[in-house]
């Protein structure tokens, strides 16, 4: 790669700040207390008609930030984990339109010094529609400003409450695998590859739909209406693409930072002052893709920094993931 001039350096720096979220699943509420599910972003590359993705994640809980942002440890001797196996697919509907569906299956394992629980079930599923507004012309050398055009995708997604929520028949919070609410998101995904670097940013804003509740943990209660708070999410990352050998296989390493915020929910229109949360986390991922790019394998890690100020009213966890993806041309 040629040594870039000052304008190019500025643009690359901007790209670095923007970062590549498509490899990293957005943070999701998960675990025995908060529901789970959700899957990684499923973006279909140009030239692919469809893809199938299978990802296994293990989320290990390690305390939480309280409402003041102070980190509190989990009870001594506890071991709280959630495993998620997410089957996802994306398909091209038209030249610039694609849709994806991610369906997780969730296993909860919670061990305290005085209570042990294991359960499993579907998590909440996500149906997404993407419009490819701009195409990224992946480049090695900057020749004109047009070469800096990133890929830009926009579209809605719908979270479907297929998981086990507190409003279903299960009687224990340890069984919860979903939140029980439909959510409609607007999403923006921007990616740019300037070989050997790749960067991207993902933004989302979601609104939960209000629902009626007449049951909590298997017991009927006086009916009420509930809505969770609006959700804002953002993630950015930077990757480096290494070509392996002479065959054309690629290994992409990515570092990312993610932010999520959910406002207070309401119950019968009254604000629930205990429900707002926010979380910032960092992550890394390795993605191997074969010469023909049909097969790819990924490994990822997402870490919540436990220091004060990095989150509020939310569990701190590490999420380890491995996945395999096949693209149909």
């Amino acid at each position, binding site marked *: 790669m040629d040594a870039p001039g000052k304008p190019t350096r500025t643009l690359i720096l901007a790209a670095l700040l923007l970062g590549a979220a498509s490899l990293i699943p957005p943070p999701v509420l998960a675990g*025995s*207390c*908060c529901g789970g599910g959700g899957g990684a972003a499923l973006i279909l590359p140009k030239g692919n008609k*469809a893809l199938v993705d299978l990802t296994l994640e293990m989320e290990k809980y390690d305390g*939480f930030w*309280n*409402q003041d942002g102070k980190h*509190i*440890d*989990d*009870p*001594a001797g506890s071991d709280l984990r959630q495993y998620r196996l997410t*089957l*996802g*697919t994306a*398909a*091209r*509907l*038209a030249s610039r339109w694609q*849709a994806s*569906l991610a*369906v997780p299956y969730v296993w909860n394992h919670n061990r*305290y*010094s*005085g*209570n042990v629980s294991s359960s499993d079930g*579907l998590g909440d*599923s996500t149906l997404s529609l993407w419009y490819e507004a701009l195409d990224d012309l992946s480049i090695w050398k900057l020749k004109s400003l047009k070469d800096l055009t990133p890929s830009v995708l926009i579209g809605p997604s719908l979270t*479907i*409450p297929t*998981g*086990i*929520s507190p*409003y279903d028949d299960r*009687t224990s*919070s*340890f069984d919860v695998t*979903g939140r029980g609410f439909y959510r409609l998101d607007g999403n923006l995904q921007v990616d740019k590859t300037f070989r050997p670097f790749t960067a991207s940013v993902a933004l989302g804003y979601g609104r939960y739909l209000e*629902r*009626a*509740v*007449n049951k*909590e*943990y*298997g*017991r*009927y*209660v*006086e*009916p009420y209406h509930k809505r969770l708070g609006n959700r804002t999410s953002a993630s950015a990352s930077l990757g480096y693409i290494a070509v392996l050998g002479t065959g054309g296989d690629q290994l992409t390493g990515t570092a990312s930072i993610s932010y999520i915020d959910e406002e207070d929910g309401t*119950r019968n229109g*009254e*604000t*629930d*002052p*205990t429900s707002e949360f926010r979380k910032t986390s960092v992550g890394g991922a390795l993605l191997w893709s074969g010469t023909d790019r049909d097969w790819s394998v990924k490994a990822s890690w997402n870490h919540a920094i436990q220091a004060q100020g990095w989150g509020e*009213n*939310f*569990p701190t966890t590490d999420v380890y993931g491995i996945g395999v993806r096949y693209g*149909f041309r």
Partner: protein
Amino acid sequence: MGSVSRRIMPLLVAVLLAGCNGVGTDLSPSGADRRPPVTPGTTGPSVGQIAPDFTLPDTLGDNVALSTSLPGRKGVVLYFTMWCVICGDEMSHMRSAIMPAHPDVGFFAIDYVSGTVADARASELSNGFANSGFTVLVDLGNPVLHAYAATMGTTVVIDNTGIVRMNENYGTGSRLQAILGGL
């Protein structure tokens, strides 16, 4: 839309729908009031029933019985905690927004995840609830959790005649406030 796409999408949708049927999720929730009628004079966890009595150790090892905690008070509140983020938030809200208005009500946090009194005491201290107004009781073996059909965040109000007046999730705290105001 290519033939591959036409094959894969329906397959995934079928998997999704099959899973929904299997797990019994609530995709179209109902707001109908389906609370079953309660027979007065029976003992149980439902509103209107006689509260099941219990005796549990607190975090200093002293036994506390429901039956001896009611006299001299308008009632007691049981809050079931597993020392999680939601539990801490709701207990803090109760401490700041509800306890000051009800000095004649006893507030008990039922720890149902600790296996020893010492573990419960450690969690009480690390979560900042020592001398908080809550008496933390240790539900070793979970008899009280089961007797009250409770789980994380379940909030039970028992009046001074021993009748259950509320048994549901803490929510915003306004239901608890209203019921305590009516004791």
